[in-house]
Structure formats: C-alpha cells, structure tokens
C-alpha cells in the first residue's frame, strides 16, 4: 500500500530537479570531456604562464632571501631610532654571504627602487666588509656612510622583508610608499605611468573612433551593393585582414618614411613644399593602427546591416519618414549591436598593440605593451613589467566582459 502511494504521488519540485540533474549528468560529463583537453591545454600553456607572470607584480623575494638574518633581527625592532648592533652584525653576515653568491647587485637594484642611492650603499658596504675591524660594526657602517644611521633606511629594509610588496603596483599608478608605509603620489618628475596608461587609452580610443567613422559608411555601402560588387568590396576588406600585421606595418613604414611614398606623392602634387615628418609620429601610429583595425570594425557592422530587412526602411518611408529621418531613427539604431561589437573588439585589440607603435611610433607614442617589453628586455625589472601587465589586463578584461555581456562569445565570427 505504502509503495503504491509513493508511486502515485508525483515527485516534488526539488526532487524533480535533482532527478533531472542526475539523468543529465552522463551527457554533461561526456560533453565536458570533449572540451577538457583544450581547456587543460589552455590553462597550462596560456593561463598558468600569465598567472605566474602577474604574480611577479607583488612578489618580493630579494631582501627576504638575500638578507634572511637581518630580516629576522629587524622583526624585534620597533622602528624607533637606529636598530642595535645585532642588526648591523646580521646585515654584515648576510652581505658577506651575498658577496660569495654574487647576489648583492640584485639586492642593491631592488632596494634602489625604494630609495635612490641604496645600490651604491649596499655595494660599498659589501666591498668594505673585509676591511672592517673587529668590535662594534655600527659605528664603522655609519663612518662609511652616515645614511646607515638613518631610521628610514632600516624601515625600508624591514618593510621589504615581507614576501609581498605593493611597490610595483603602486608605482604603476604613480603612487609610492614613504618610510612609514603611507601611500601618496610620487614626485612629478617620476610620475610617468599614468601618462603611459592615459596615452594607451587615448590612442586606442582614437583608433576606435577612426575605424567607426571610416568603417560605418563602408559597411553600409557594401551591404547595399549588388552581390558581385559587394563580393569584390568584401575581398578588399578581408585581404588586409589576412595579410600579416607585420607586413602591413612594414608597408606603413615604407609609406610614411621621410623619403617615402606619401611624401613623394605630396611633393609631386605640389601639396607640400617640404617633406613632412610622418614616421615616429602619433599621426603615423594612429593611421597605421586604424588601417590594421578597420576590418575588425567593419565586419560585425556589415553582418548586422545585412540582417536588417528592407521592409524596415519601406515601413518607415510609408509611414511618412523622409529619407534621412528613416535612416537615423530606424536604420542606425538597429545597427548598434554591430557597432558595439566592432568598436569594442577594436578597442580591446588596440589596447594591446606592440609591433606598430614600436616600428612606426616615436618615444611619445609607445603604449603599455611596449613598456612591458622594455622592462623585460632592457631593465630586467620583472616586477614593474608585471605591474603594468596587470593594469593592461584589467583594462582589457573589463572591456572584454562588456563585450561578452553585450555581444556574447558565441557570436564571434571569423571572415
């Protein structure tokens, strides 16, 4: 009896949901299993490297690893006045080992970021370690450089004994920490990074607007053209997209050179009397980037325009709207999804440009990516490179999220 009852009673709502989940689990797992290799591959070759790189923005190993004794001694120090003799002794011992391992230079470089002159102070002490006499070391340090009697210097060493630092991230937005750990703006002559970020956003914005102004009418004309002509026009959009970015940038280098094609044409036409400086300028960079990004803006707009039925304009006209009003009130608003997709994509990609500014731009046109590369290649300052990468990534991902919300990853089309 009880059994029949339970069979007759329909499953309650939560049970039903659980049953559904149970019934679907094999399908879900099978589907997931197919995507899993690619996901794991991307996590290993793409996610993990980027994650590892970004953590260097806060990693702070130098002081901790090179001055272990000093750091543990300074743990007891309350930050008031010059630390006692045992701190100097610990520092001397640590530096002696650093000299053996030749890590003193790395330490000096790291501490020099925090306070100018630290590198030479560390190197000088390391050099003179052998000539120090027995007895209290503190006076001998201070005799070598009075700065060793400075509370602030010891505070910096103590603070950087921590495994994590905000130094790089703060510097990347033109902020700094003073000896007591308070955060404030850095001196105007050192405040360069907000300018770089602003410049990156500004160039990406200019390129996006330029591609929209050039691309929207072009997409419109392609969408109206008879099939054969439209095919040819589309070819003129797709062919540059397929040509390597480097080749296109090379072409612009040749075009923009002082003796380049554009200047030759302008002179021949008598439009200018002297050669214009086009290479290594903002104008040249934005022009080349606009050329490269134009297809990315045109294609999504075109695909939306093609989907707007002719009936929409007919209806608008038959209801009394003159041509321009019909265009702006009925046609243009319906192209917005394509405009959003194209512009967001171009903006995202423009933020990360490296090759084109590097080859066509001048020093004032270098974007965040170029500085990241420079910090890695020339300055070997991984922390700063990673901090800038964090900022670039935050900008990119926030716009990517907007793109996902507005457009959706599933609607990305190629060619």
């Amino acid at each position, binding site marked *: 009896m009880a059994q029949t009852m339970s069979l007759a009673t329909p499953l309650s709502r939560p049970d039903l949901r659980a049953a559904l989940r149970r019934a679907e689990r094999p399908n879900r797992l099978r589907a997931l299993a197919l995507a899993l290799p690619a996901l794991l591959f991307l996590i290993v070759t793409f996610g993990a490297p980027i994650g590892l790189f970004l953590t260097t923005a806060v990693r702070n190993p130098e002081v901790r690893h090179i001055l272990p004794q000093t750091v543990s001694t300074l743990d007891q120090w309350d930050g008031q006045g010059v630390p006692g003799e045992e701190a100097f002794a610990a520092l001397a011992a640590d530096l002696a080992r650093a000299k053996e391992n030749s890590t003193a230079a790395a330490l000096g470089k790291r501490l020099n970021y925090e306070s100018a002159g630290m590198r030479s102070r560390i190197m000088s002490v390391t050099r003179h370690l052998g000539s120090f006499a027995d007895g209290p070391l503190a006076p001998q340090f201070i005799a070598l450089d009075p700065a060793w009697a400075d509370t602030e210097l010891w505070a910096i060493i103590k603070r950087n004994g921590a495994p994590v630092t905000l130094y790089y991230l703060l510097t990347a937005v033109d902020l700094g920490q003073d000896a007591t750990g308070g955060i404030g703006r850095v001196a105007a002559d050192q405040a360069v990074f907000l300018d770089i970020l602003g410049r990156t956003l500004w160039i990406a914005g200019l390129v996006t607007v330029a591609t929209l102004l050039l691309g929207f009418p072009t997409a419109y004309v392609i969408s109206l053209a008879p099939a054969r002509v439209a095919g040819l026009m589309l070819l003129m959009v797709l062919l540059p997209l397929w040509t390597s970015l480097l080749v296109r940038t090379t*072409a612009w280098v040749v075009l923009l050179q002082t003796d380049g094609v554009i200047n030759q044409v302008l002179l021949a036409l008598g439009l200018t009397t002297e050669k214009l400086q086009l290479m290594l300028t903002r104008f040249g960079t934005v022009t080349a980037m606009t050329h490269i990004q134009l297809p990315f803006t045109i294609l999504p707009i075109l695909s939306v325009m093609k989907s707007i039925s002719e009936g929409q304009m007919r209806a608008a006209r038959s209801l009394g709207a003159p041509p321009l009003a019909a265009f702006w009130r009925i046609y243009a608003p319906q192209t917005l999804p394509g405009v959003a997709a194209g512009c967001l994509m171009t903006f995202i990609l423009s933020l990360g440009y490296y090759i084109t500014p590097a080859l066509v731009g001048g020093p004032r046109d270098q974007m965040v990516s170029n500085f990241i590369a420079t910090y890695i290649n020339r300055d070997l300052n991984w922390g700063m490179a990673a901090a800038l990468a964090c900022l670039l990534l935050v900008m990119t991902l926030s716009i990517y999220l907007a793109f996902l919300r507005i457009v959706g990853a599933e609607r990305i089309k190629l060619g």
Partner: protein
Amino acid sequence: MWLPAYATRSERLGRLFVVLFAVAVLVFLIGPLFVVFPLSVSKDPFFTFPIKEYSWRWYADFFENTRWTKSLVNSLIAAVFSTALATLLGTLAALGISRPGFPWRKAVMALMISPMIMPVVIVAVGAYMFFGALGLTDTRTGLVLAHAGLAIPFVVVTVLSALSTYDANLTRAGASLGAGPVSVFFAVTLPLILPGIVSGALLAFAVSFDEVIVALFLTGADQRTLPVQMFSGIRDQINPTIMAAASLLTTVSIALFVLLSLIRRVRRA
C-alpha cells in the same frame, strides 16, 4: 540594389557621396598591400616610386642568406605542428561545446576565446617566464605550444559555426540505422563539418605563421621565425630584402585566403 526605386534626388546625391567615400576607404585598406611587392622587385635599394628597373636580386639575396631561409623553414615547421595541435584540440572542444548538455557554456566559451583578445605581449612574457622554468625557451616545442594556444580559439569558433548548420537529426538517423556513436561521427558528422575544420586549420596556420611577439620572446637564434627575422631587420635598418620577405609572407597569406574561399564556396554549393 544601390538605391531603392523610390529614392529621391537628394537621396541619390547623398548616396553617390557615401559610395565615393566607401571606395576611398577601400582603396586606403587595400593600397598599402600594393606597396610592398613592387619595391621587392625594384633593382634600386631605395624605396622610391616610380620603379626604374626591375630585378629579382632581393629574392636571390633572401634565398642565398641562410639566416632568412632558416627562418622560413622554422616558421613553416612551427606553423604545421601548432596547426595540427590546435585543430585537434579545438575541434574536440567545439564538438563538446555544441552538445546540448554542455555545462557552463558561456564561461567556457569566454575562456576559450580569451587568447584572441589577450594583449600578446602579456602572453609572450608569461610564456617566456613559465616555459623558461620548464626549460622550454629557445626550443621549438615551447613555440609550438604557445602558438597552438593562440590558435585554438580560431579553430573553436570556425568549427562551432560549421556545427551550427549541422542537423542533429543526421546523427540520430545514423544511430537509428545501426551505427555506433564513433562510426556515426566518422561516417556522417566528420565529412559534413570537414570544411569547417579545414577552415579553422587554415586560420590556425595563418595565426602561427604571422605571429611575431611570442616568437620574439621564445626563440633563440636557431628557432628564429621569418616574422621575427623581419621585425629585427626593420628595427635595425629597413632594406629591400625585407620587402622580399614581406612579399613571401603575403603570398602565403593570400594562398591561405584563396584556399579558404574555395572551401567556403564548395560548402555553399
């Protein structure tokens, strides 16, 4: 076509203006592609137009210089292997994602696509650091892995689009006729989505073959690819041999593009 039959005179004038504007933009788009090739066959080492004398000397330079030829071979090898890897992984992933029960589809897609939008310098430095720890910098393996990662989204998107037009009833029909899931896949599904897979592979090849920045960070002198060789050349002193290299790179791109268009045409027919 250009204009509806009911267009007014001012509309016709406006349209003429817009069409002229669009033609100018298209010329701007395609024009720079026609700069490189003529300069590569100019005898003159200076980049001046009009070209006075034609010569293949810069191509001879290219093919006689082992640094250039080696970089070309390196590029081809890296592209072939990363294409194979990306096509295999990307196609499997697309097959999974397209199934109705796929969990967290939006998030997974967002993740799969992200290599497309990630600033390449960040990818390159990350790979340089991570692969360095694994001893994979200055090796072909490292480059192939990194390029495959960059190419996967292109394969996923293309194969998904091929699968979106695939009628799931065909799979059911195959099963009802007695074929197991694997047989149905190879006998029915695969032949129908093959054009999509090949398109994805062509895109993946192009991605790897044209990529500069990751290769710049990951390769040593022995694995240096053609774009890297070109990039360093341009930074150093731009010379006509670079134009020859650029022309070769473009030729490969156009060949891939033509192949892709042919596949699309076959698919539509």
